[in-house]
């Protein structure tokens, strides 16, 4: 007798089913009725729109009431029993018109089969998928059972509330929702009967705890499990050499600097110990753990802050590109200016500029601004440079870059600096050496082209940035626009190469797209084409300090020296024998961008190599050590 299917049984039509054919009609009808019901809300009058409304003794016709109650069921899951005893469950969608009471369900399924009375529900075996629209004509309808129906305002409110409660309050929901039902937070109080074990509470607080707890040891003792953990597999190996202490100090300094930076972010400030909003009445929840809400909390404007924070982070990590660029240009300029009558360098620069110009805006970098700045900026610059390097992403050359930083400084002290710098350079140089393989072309050229130390240094930063783009790729150098053969590592090339490398990098890729300063940096970032060789940076000579600066020197100096007379003048003595060697690292800023920016660049990170360099009073010298230790194997992106 189950002719209750989606297909309307013929007799339904006879019944005027047509009227309720299709949910739509029924729905519409119901809708219109509902609407009339709605308009009647609160009014106890018989609605005239309801056809066939009977005159009832009560103010509201009984039909209206029925309609109203049926409407209250819309969307609820109901069970409908039909004549044969079968029961269907589905979502109440609509009821028929006034004459007969039929029902339309959505997603209906049979849950009790009247044919097998007394048997357990048919849920045991599902024979067909739920019916999208299920019509039950009045002739079949016995009863509709609905639970937990809200029929009055109280009920509606109640329903709304429980609906909300059922929603999972995930962070994004909280952020986006305008109104979130807030819970009253109560402080947590531990149970009384929980045993207090004070000795357990501080066991790990003291990092210098004399009885250090070694998890591996413990594990082995307790379970006989031998660990195969090797920290160096996951991070840069720290090379502890003679400069460890200096590097550590420098690293700490940089870390302090960063940690002491101002931030708008509430949580970041908290972490850093600065109490920026101490006086504002920010409750604990906001201070430590709340989800950002778009409704103007104390850390309102978080969104902007978020961006700021992010940018800050990025800047902290990678340096403000604009800043860097400025620095670079500045340094460059300074170098230039300080060189005074070193026209050649200037011209050299100009040359490069021109060259780079051909490529793009790269030239701007070099030629722009010649403000007089003091080298005190070096420090920040170096950091910036570091950032740059980081940005460049793991190009060894970056190291060179870093090394270079100090150069300008050295440059300032023509003579003394020279001698002093030389040895420093030496150290710095080591880094470079490591890279020589790839970077060389860059650095050399770079150096050479610069002509003077300062210049080079400037150039280096720039170049480095550039080089970041094209880590150790000769091509990049070429792209610089310099006709010189970048590939060759010999110094002769350097001049040409450097020139090319310098501007080349920047202009090549994104230069065009970016504005002056920024562009210099960004292009690098974009241009960074992963050089498979670069990655596998197992500095050939890296083994120890890349003391093979000589090799690098070869790149840089000779040509440099010749090419740029002032170079000699440069305290650093670029290209001048040993000093040159020292210089080398400096010269190479552009050389291989760090292969893995992250690893490479994190002055405050475990990248001791970098720090080490710094320790040498070179702001950004991590290169030398860094190179060798870089466990590049992991870094094969």
């Amino acid at each position, binding site marked *: 007798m189950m002719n209750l299917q989606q297909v309307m049984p013929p007799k339904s039509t006879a019944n005027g089913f047509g009227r309720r054919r299709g949910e739509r009609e029924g729905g519409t009808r119901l809708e219109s009725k509902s609407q009339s019901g709605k308009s009647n809300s609160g009014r106890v009058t018989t609605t005239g729109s309801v056809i066939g409304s009977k005159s009832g003794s009560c103010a509201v016709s009984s039909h209206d009431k029925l309609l109203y109650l049926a409407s209250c069921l819309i969307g609820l899951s109901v069970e409908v029993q039909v004549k044969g005893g079968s029961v269907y469950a589905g979502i109440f969608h609509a009821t028929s018109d006034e004459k007969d009471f039929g029902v339309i369900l959505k997603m209906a399924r049979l849950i009790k089969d009247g044919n097998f009375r007394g048997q357990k529900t048919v849920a045991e075996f599902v024979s067909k998928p739920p019916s999208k629209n299920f019509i039950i004509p009045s002739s079949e309808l016995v009863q509709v059972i609905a639970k937990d129906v809200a029929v009055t*305002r109280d009920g509606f409110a109640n329903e709304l509330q429980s609906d909300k409660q059922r929603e999972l309050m995930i962070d994004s929901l909280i952020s986006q929702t305008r109104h979130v039902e807030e819970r009253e937070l109560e402080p947590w109080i531990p149970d009384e009967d929980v045993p207090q074990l004070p000795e357990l509470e501080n066991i790990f607080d003291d990092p210098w705890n004399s009885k250090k707890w070694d998890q591996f040891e413990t594990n082995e003792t307790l379970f006989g499990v031998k660990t195969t953990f090797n920290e160096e597999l996951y991070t840069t190996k720290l090379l502890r050499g003679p400069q460890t202490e200096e590097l550590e100090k420098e690293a700490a300094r940089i870390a302090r600097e960063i940690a002491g930076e101002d931030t708008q972010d509430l949580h970041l400030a908290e972490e850093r110990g600065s109490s920026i909003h101490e006086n504002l009445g920010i409750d604990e929840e906001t201070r430590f753990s709340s989800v950002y809400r778009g409704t103007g909390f104390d850390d309102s404007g978080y969104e902007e802050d978020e961006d700021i924070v992010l940018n800050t982070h990025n800047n902290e990590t990678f340096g403000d590109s604009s800043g860097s660029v400025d620095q670079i240009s500045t340094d460059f300029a300074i170098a230039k200016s300080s060189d005074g009558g070193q026209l050649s360098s200037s011209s050299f620069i100009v040359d490069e500029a021109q060259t780079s110009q051909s490529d793009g805006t790269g030239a701007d970098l070099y030629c722009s601004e010649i403000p007089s700045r003091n080298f005190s900026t070096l420090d920040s610059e170096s950091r910036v440079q570091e950032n740059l390097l980081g940005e460049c992403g793991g190009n060894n050359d970056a190291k060179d870059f870093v090394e270079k930083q100090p150069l300008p400084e050295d440059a300032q002290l023509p003579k003394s600096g020279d001698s002093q710098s030389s040895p420093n350079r030496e150290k710095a140089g080591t880094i470079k050496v490591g890279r020589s393989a790839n970077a060389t072309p860059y650095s050399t050229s770079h150096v050479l082209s610069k002509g003077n130390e300062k210049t080079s240094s400037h150039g280096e930063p720039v170049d480095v940035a550039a080089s970041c783009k094209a880590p150790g790729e000769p091509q990049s150098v070429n792209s610089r626009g310099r006709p010189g053969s970048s590939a060759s590592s010999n110094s002769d090339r350097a001049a040409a190469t450097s020139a090319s490398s310098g501007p080349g990098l920047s202009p090549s890729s994104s230069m065009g797209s970016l504005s002056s300063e920024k562009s210099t940096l960004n292009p690098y970032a974009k241009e960074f084409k992963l050089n498979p060789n670069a990655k596998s940076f197992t500095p050939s000579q890296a083994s120890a300090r890349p003391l093979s600066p000589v090799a690098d020197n070869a790149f840089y100096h000779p040509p440099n020296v010749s090419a740029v007379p002032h170079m000699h003048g440069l305290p650093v003595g670029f290209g001048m024998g040993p000093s040159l060697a020292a210089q080398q690292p400096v010269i190479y800023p552009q050389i291989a961008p760090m292969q893995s920016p992250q690893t490479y660049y994190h002055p405050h990170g475990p990248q001791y190599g970098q720090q080490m360099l710094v320790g040498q009073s070179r702001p950004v010298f991590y290169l030398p050590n860094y190179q060798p230790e870089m466990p590049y194997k992991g870094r094969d992106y």
Partner: protein
Amino acid sequence: MEGQVGGSGEEFAVGCLLSIKTTLGDEFDGQVMAFDRFTNMLVIQEGLKSGPRRNIRLLNANYIKDFSFLGQADDPLDPKKCFLDLSRLQAREHLAVRQAEADAQRIGVGVTTEAQNIFDALSKTLPVRWDKTVIVVMNEVRVSSPYLPESVSGGTAAANERVKKVLEFERKRLQARGSSQG
């Protein structure tokens, strides 16, 4: 108002407390909320109390086998508090339909309970869907009747293994549970 129930509409006056037996064997108590003579539909709220949420029955009076009058009380429905928010209702319906559709995806059609149980167990940890009577895991591994580890096919070796393992485990668990439940 035809049918067994005699006469006057009083019996079905709003507010009446009744105990009703239907021709199909249902028995329940409730209070009359409304009675529509034209359609012969009786709306009863179960229980004798009115709260914000109530259990409601819409009963076709034709199927009332027997009833007894328990008392008379006020109209359980206060018209002053009644109003319909159509949009909310429609939204509720849409949501319910969406959920039901999602649920329907999880029910296998024409599969045994056992198969459905296995499906449900697998779905706790793996993304599964039905493809007729085949359980498709992670869109690559297929488990067909009789849903034994041997019936697992497809996918990468790793995925296949994983599904087999999970299947075995779940089967064991179901067995254990089934037997413990007698």
